[in-house]
Structure formats: structure tokens, C-alpha cells
């Protein structure tokens, strides 16, 4: 083997050594960084965010160390440099090796080869060099690893994989035996199974927000002996597992304080119970109640339901009421039940086939959409839409036709239009002195045309009701004739047309038939509009106005009549109070006493807030505890007040200035101060 070949082999060995050593140093640096962070965490509780960057930082450090070592050993790639490195360690070579690498002369080269041949550095220099290269980094790796092994269990885990709830994994350095076992605490919140939500862990919670029914698992360091928790009147005892104590409880239905006790120590945690809200259901169609003339047809039903945690099922619920007076029968049932498997939102569409409900005239059907979420509790998790009432008209009851899609009442439309025409006419009358006769007649006729159109519309409503035919007034001649009739004549004609005499139905106001009760005012309006249009067409708007006012008043009366008729009106009995006064036989009765009204559950206990505020001056911790209890109490009554109190508590806990948060909480909970510019003569009530 020539000298060059030997140097090449040595170079390869050196390069491998450099790379390996760099890797070992890198590993040592990374492990040492993690160990140092663990040690630091042991001394000072490092925040989770900071611990989260330790491993990435250790990796970066390791890579940097590796690269640095590789950079330092970069000259080993050169053959002369390797030869020089050997010459340095084998001085007896007297540069024969370096010279042989540079020598081209064959004779001289063989001499040098022989000289080099005499020295076996592979067996002398290299082992020493290798051991010197590897021992320090291996020692470093060993020390760092030993440090990690020696660190208390859990500390490295907190650094390596920090997670919520690992506060209890960090052992205190020197925990006095008498110290409280209530710090640190980790809690695991397991939501009810039906929600499908995953469990979450928290460190050192001051407030635990969770759904009602969630399982709360508290964990702390130390034995379980003597550790108890109370929520309201319920008491929980801790159990032990290894060097930890554990407590499990269920989130109560109302916000409550959880008080943990360990000998003389106690700790307050707010259980902020969040109830599972019921599904929200809205019925989109039909938009309003409906009266059907006959119990046939189909009613499309459409609605929407949503729930924050997922819907279980939806259905359409109906109740059919039959009968009248004091005798009613009821049937109820469910249609179109659908399962939603936890979908947050659902659209419900179905059609009610009226025929299938076997309804009779006078029957009333109540329809509503119902949705249920996945909460298994019997009384929870059901939401319902508004109810739509479908009534089947009784025989002879032709006051209303089937109303689907719920157009606005016709009379209302007329009233609005008539008002507009009146406004236009009044404006024209005001401008009359300034207008020429031609202009006046032209504008007056334009209004008159509108008035005629409106009259025809009212006529259509009346006659379609009376005859059941739309557009029954189309004949111009007939219109002319009707326009000249009095209201009574028209009504008589209407009665004849409907074949229902006024005497048939007597349970309406003033003995009128329903046909007359509703339509008389409209007919009066119709006639008044006729007169108004006539005056307008001859260019006499001032004379038209009284008729127009009469028409508007009649339309208003028609609306009233319709409402009264549809709603019914019980007979009014006027009691002669003076005659009846103290005429009843009243034996001597024992006195009756009143008990004081309880302090309203909805009231904010401002006086307690005042006491807590006083405590802030001298005893910050006591003030925090008082404010926490107060916050629990107002959580459901005043969410904004509870939030403001939370800010005050946080400010107190963190030692920040409390004034802005306190001023806000004070205004919300106790009301803003009342002030007056001056010295009031009598108290502050005015």
C-alpha cells in the first residue's frame, strides 16, 4: 500500500470520526437543552407556551452544534491537510509523508515511500485520536441523559410534550409537609357522551365552564387523606392514586361554587354550568293560520331547526279538536318523524294531507314542528315552533274562504289606497285657487279614475264574498245599476244571491247576519266611493272629499266588524256592585296574614358587592373570594355583570390596577350613580 493510499484511508477514517463526533455533540446539546429546561421548570414554573418551544429549540441547537463541528473539521477533506495532521502526530516522519504526496520523481518517491513505510501511524496515532474525539461528547451525552433520568418523573414530560392539565406533574422542589395540597390542581372535563365533544384538561382553573352533566375530574399532588370538596350541600371525598389525589363530580345544573378543603386550607373554584339549550325551531310555511271551507286538500309545511350540539330528530305534531260548547274531543299524533344523527341544522318539509286527518266541519287542527336534540334527559332538549291553526269552516259559515299564503286583508289595502286618494284630493283642493279650470278638471279626473278603480276593487271583494265568484262585477251596466242602489238594496240583493236570510244566523252583533255584519260597511264605502268619483269627474274635488272621508270611515268599520265577528264577543254582564256590596253571608273569619316577599331571585345583591369592595382595601384574597361567590350568583341574572366581575377578579389576581374594571362592574351591578347639579331640597328620589 502506497503512502498516498494510506493517507487516503486515514482521511476517510478522520472524516467519519468528525461526522460521528459532530452528531454525538449535537445529541448531547439537544439532550442537555431539554434537561436544562426541565431543571429550570423545576425551579420556576415555566408557562406552557414557553415549554412548548423547548423541543424545537433543542433540535435547532443540536443541528447548529453538528454544523459547527462539521465546519471545524472541514480541512480533513484535503489529503495534504490529512498528511500534515499525521506528520504533526508522528514527528519522526520528518515531512517524508507530505513530501511523498507532492513528489513526482519516481526514484525519490520510492525512497520516501520506504521512509514512510517504516511508520505505522494507523496503530499508534489513530486509536488515540479516535478516543480523544469521542470521549468528551459521549461524556456530555451521558451527563445530560443522567440529568434527565435524575429529574423527577413528569418534569421531562412537561418539557417534552407540554399539555393542558400537566400542572400536577411538576413536583415542588422542597414541599413542606404542611403545605396545601390544593395547589397545583388539574381538571379534566368530560362532556356528556351525547354531545360527541372530546374531553379537555385545564391547569389551575379558577372557573370551570362546562355543559351541565359534564364529568369533572380533579387531580392534585399528595395523598387524598382529608381532602374534601363541597358543591352546595353535596360533599365529595378525594381518592388516592399513587402520589396523587383525585376527585370526580358532575357539573351541577346551576352555577355553583366548588369549595375544596385540605385541613386549614381551602380553595374556591367557580363551576360555571352551561345548560344545553333546546333546539330552535321555526315554521316557515304556512305563514299564518288558515280557515278551510272543506276538509280536503294538502297543506305544505316547511320549517327549520337548529341546535348547537346536534339534532336527534324532528317531527310534525298535530292536535285535532272536535266539538263545540262544553263537549270537545281531541286527537293528537305525529307526522313525518325524521332522524338527523347530530346534524346542527335541518330543514323540515312535509305535506299534511287534510283528507287523511278525517276532519269534520268545525274541527280545529293545531300543527307545529318539534325538534329534539341528543340530550337524553327527559325534560330537556325539545324545541317547538309556533303553532299554526287550521280550522274547517262550519256549515253555512262563508265568512271566509281558504286563505293560503296569507295575503294582507283586503280591506286594509283599500284603506291605505283611500287614504292616499284623500291626501291627493286635499292637496288639489289647497292648490285649487292657483289652478286654471282645465288643469283642475284634468287632475281631478285623474284622481276620480283612481277612485273608480278602487271602488271596483272593493266591489270585487264584496261580490266575491257574496257569490263566491271572482270578478262578478264585470258587467258595466250592472255596475252602473249597483252604483245607484242604496246599501240596503245592495244587501238585499246580496242576501238573495247567497240564499241565506238574515234570520238564519242570529249570534252576531245587533242581530245581523254575518254577511250583513261584514259587508254593510264595505257596501257603504262602495257607494261613497261612487259619489266621490262622480264629483271628481266633474272637477269638484272639494265636494268629493266628504264622500271620500265617509268611504274611509266605512272601510275602517268593515275592518272592525270583521275582527269582532271572527273573534266573537261574549255577552257583557254588568254587575250592580252597589247592590251586591257586602250582601254575602260572611261568618266571622279568622284574621289572614301575609308573609314577607322573598328577596327577588333576580335582584343583584349590591350590598354584597359593597362589602367585597371594602375588602379590596385591606384583604385582597378575601375580596377575590367574595367576588367569585358573587360572580356565581349573578352569572345567570346578569351575564355582563358577571363578566365585569371576572375582569375585577383577574385584575386583583394579577396585581393590575382594578379601578377601570371595578367602575364598570359597579355601574352594571349596583346601577350608575345618580347625580344632580345642586343640593337637592329633599333626598335623592327626584
Amino acid at each position, binding site marked *: 500500500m502506497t503512502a498516498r493510499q494510506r493517507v487516503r484511508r486515514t482521511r476517510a477514517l478522520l472524516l467519519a470520526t468528525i461526522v460521528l463526533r459532530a452528531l454525538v455533540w449535537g445529541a448531547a446539546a439537544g439532550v442537555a437543552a431539554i434537561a436544562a429546561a426541565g431543571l429550570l421548570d423545576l425551579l420556576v414554573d415555566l408557562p406552557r407556551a414557553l415549554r412548548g418551544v423547548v423541543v424545537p429549540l433543542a433540535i435547532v441547537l443540536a443541528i447548529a452544534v453538528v454544523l459547527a463541528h462539521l465546519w471545524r473539521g472541514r480541512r480533513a477533506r484535503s489529503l495534504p491537510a490529512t498528511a500534515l495532521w499525521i506528520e504533526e502526530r508522528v514527528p519522526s516522519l520528518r515531512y517524508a509523508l507530505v513530501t511523498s504526496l507532492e513528489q513526482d520523481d519516481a526514484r525519490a518517491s520510492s525512497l520516501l515511500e520506504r521512509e514512510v513505510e517504516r511508520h505505522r501511524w494507523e496503530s499508534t496515532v489513530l486509536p488515540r485520536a479516535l478516543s480523544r474525539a469521542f470521549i468528551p461528547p459521549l461524556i456530555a451525552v451521558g451527563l445530560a441523559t443522567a440529568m434527565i433520568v435524575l429529574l423527577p418523573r413528569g418534569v421531562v414530560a412537561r418539557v417534552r410534550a407540554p399539555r393542558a392539565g400537566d400542572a400536577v406533574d411538576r413536583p415542588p422542589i422542597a414541599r413542606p409537609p404542611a403545605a396545601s395540597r390544593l395547589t397545583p390542581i388539574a381538571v379534566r372535563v368530560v362532556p356528556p357522551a351525547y354531545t360527541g365533544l372530546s374531553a379537555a384538561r385545564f391547569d389551575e382553573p379558577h372557573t370551570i365552564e362546562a355543559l351541565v352533566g359534564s364529568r369533572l375530574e380533579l387531580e392534585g399532588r399528595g395523598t387524598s387523606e382529608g381532602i374534601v370538596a363541597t358543591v352546595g350541600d353535596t360533599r365529595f371525598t378525594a381518592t388516592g392514586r399513587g402520589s396523587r389525589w383525585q376527585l370526580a363530580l358532575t357539573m351541577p345544573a346551576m352555577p355553583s361554587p366548588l369549595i375544596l378543603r385540605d385541613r386549614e386550607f381551602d380553595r374556591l373554584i367557580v363551576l360555571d354550568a352551561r345548560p344545553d339549550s333546546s333546539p330552535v325551531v321555526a315554521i316557515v310555511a304556512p305563514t299564518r293560520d288558515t280557515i278551510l271551507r272543506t276538509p280536503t286538500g294538502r297543506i305544505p309545511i316547511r320549517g327549520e331547526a337548529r341546535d348547537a350540539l346536534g339534532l336527534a330528530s324532528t317531527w310534525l305534531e298535530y292536535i285535532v279538536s272536535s266539538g263545540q260548547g262544553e263537549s270537545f274531543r281531541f286527537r293528537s299524533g305525529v307526522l313525518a318523524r325524521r332522524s338527523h344523527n347530530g346534524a346542527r341544522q335541518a330543514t323540515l318539509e312535509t305535506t299534511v294531507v287534510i283528507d287523511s286527518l278525517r276532519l269534520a266541519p268545525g274541527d280545529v287542527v293545531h300543527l307545529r314542528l318539534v325538534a329534539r336534540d341528543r340530550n337524553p334527559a327527559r325534560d330537556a332538549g325539545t324545541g317547538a315552533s309556533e303553532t299554526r291553526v287550521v280550522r274547517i269552516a262550519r256549515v253555512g259559515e262563508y265568512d271566509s274562504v281558504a286563505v293560503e299564503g296569507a295575503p294582507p286583508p283586503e280591506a286594509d289595502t283599500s284603506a291605505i289606497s283611500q287614504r292616499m286618494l284623500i291626501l291627493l284630493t286635499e292637496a288639489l283642493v289647497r292648490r285649487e285657487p292657483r289652478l286654471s279650470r282645465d288643469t283642475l278638471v284634468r287632475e281631478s279626473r285623474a284622481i276620480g279614475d283612481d277612485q273608480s278603480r278602487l271602488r271596483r276593487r272593493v266591489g270585487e271583494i264584496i261580490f266575491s264574498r257574496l257569490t263566491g265568484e271572482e270578478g262578478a262585477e264585470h258587467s258595466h251596466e250592472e255596475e252602473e245599476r249597483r252604483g245607484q242602489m242604496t246599501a240596503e238594496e245592495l244587501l238585499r240583493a246580496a242576501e238573495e244571491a247567497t240564499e241565506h236570510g238574515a234570520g238564519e244566523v242570529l249570534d252576531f252583533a245587533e242581530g245581523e247576519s254575518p254577511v250583513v255584519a261584514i259587508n254593510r260597511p264595505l257596501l257603504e264605502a262602495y257607494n261613497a266611493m261612487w259619489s266621490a268619483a262622480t264629483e271628481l269627474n266633474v272637477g269638484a274635488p272639494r265636494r268629493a272629499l266628504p264622500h271620500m272621508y265617509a268611504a274611509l270611515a266605512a272601510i275602517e268599520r268593515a275592518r272592525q266588524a270583521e275582527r269582532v265577528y271572527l273573534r266573537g264577543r261574549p255577552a257583557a254582564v254588568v254587575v250592580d256592585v252597589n247592590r251586591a256590596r257586602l250582601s254575602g253571608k260572611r261568618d266571622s273569619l279568622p284574621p289572614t296574614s301575609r*308573609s314577607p316577599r322573598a328577596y327577588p331571585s333576580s335582584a343583584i345583591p349590591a350590598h354584597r358587592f359593597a362589602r367585597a369592595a371594602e375588602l379590596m382595601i385591606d384583604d385582597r384574597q378575601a375580596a377575590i373570594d367574595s367576588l367569585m361567590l358573587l360572580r356565581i350568583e349573578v352569572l345567570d341574572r346578569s351575564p355582563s355583570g358577571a363578566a365585569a366581575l371576572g375582569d375585577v377578579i383577574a385584575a386583583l389576581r394579577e396585581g393590575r390596577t382594578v379601578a377601570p374594571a371595578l367602575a364598570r362592574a359597579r355601574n352594571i351591578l349596583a346601577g350608575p350613580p345618580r347625580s344632580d347639579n345642586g343640593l337637592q331640597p329633599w333626598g335623592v328620589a327626584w
Partner: protein
Amino acid sequence: MREFVFATAQYESGDWDSAPLVPANVIDSIARYTSIDVAPTGVIVALSSRDIFRHPMLYLTGHLPVRFTTAERANVTEFVRRGGFLFVDDHNHDIDGAFHKTATEEIHRSAGPLVELPNDHALYRAFFHFADGPPTTSHELNGWGDNLVHKHLQGVIRDGRVAVLYSNKDYSSEWGYHPDNKRFLAIDNTKFAVNVVVYALTR
């Protein structure tokens, strides 16, 4: 208008006007036994209107299912919150009928859960004394209808007071006659109405 005015609640879904003579009969009894100023006629107020806040006591009855509209429900909630007293009577005297099921559900949704009132509740001693709790109606006793005797009334309690009184004893039928006919009764069966009104006025 400082006198007590008996107000009947008019709601959208049912036959709210099924007991038109009850107001007059109750008014007559108030005048007959107490010195409370009372208006000679009752009024009807739509449950969805602000008018209900002019009458701190409302009487609600009917046979048909009770389904409040959104406005009615909101009004009832606010009415009760402000201290109003709602007297609901099931005109069917059912135990599980349509009115009962729907009305109790609506009351629960708008005012709070119903609880059984003990038969020694202050309501039964507010004026006349009813040692056995709510007086039984003839419909319960004579087997007319479902032949059920309801032992308790129910109520929504707010701050220790009955805010909603719920009865399925059908007082609406029991008191549904013209007050002039009271003279034909050996025992006035509307005395409990006096207790209800006095309770509402003083508690």
C-alpha cells in the same frame, strides 16, 4: 280607575271566550264579601298586546289547545316578571287533555315550572278558609266528564309568591252562570274566587 278590574286574557290559539259569565260572577262575589273597589264589568285583553300590563291579574281559560304566539309568550314572561298574577283554568277539567298538556307546557316555557300547591297554602286562607285545599267542583263530584277529583292546584312560584295559578278543576264551568242565579244556591260556590282575587291583590 283605581278599582279592581277583572280581565280575561284573549289568546290566539283557542276558545278563550268559553266562560263569558265567570267575570261577572267573580265581580259579584268580590262586591258581596269584601270592601275591595271593583269595576262592574270585566274587560278582555289580548295576551299579545301591551294592554295586559294594565291589569295585574289575568284570567285565562278554554277547551282547545293553548299555543302561545311569540308575542303572547314574551308578554306572559314579562307580565309574571313584573309581578302580575295569571289564573289559568282548564275548562275541560282534564288530567291529561289537550288544554292541560298544552297550557302547562306553555306556562312552563313562558313563566317557569309548575309545582303542586300544598293544601295549606296561603291561597286557601287569603279570605275564606278552605281547610282541605281547593274546593271541589260539581263536575268533579257528579261524574260529569271524566269523574276526576284533582286534589291540588298547581302554581308557578316566584320569590315565594304564586305568579301563575293553574287549575284543572274547571272553575270556569263551576262559576259560569249569571250572578243573579246565585240566590238559588245553598252555598255560594264562588267563594274561592274571592280568595284568588284577594291573594292576587295582597301578596
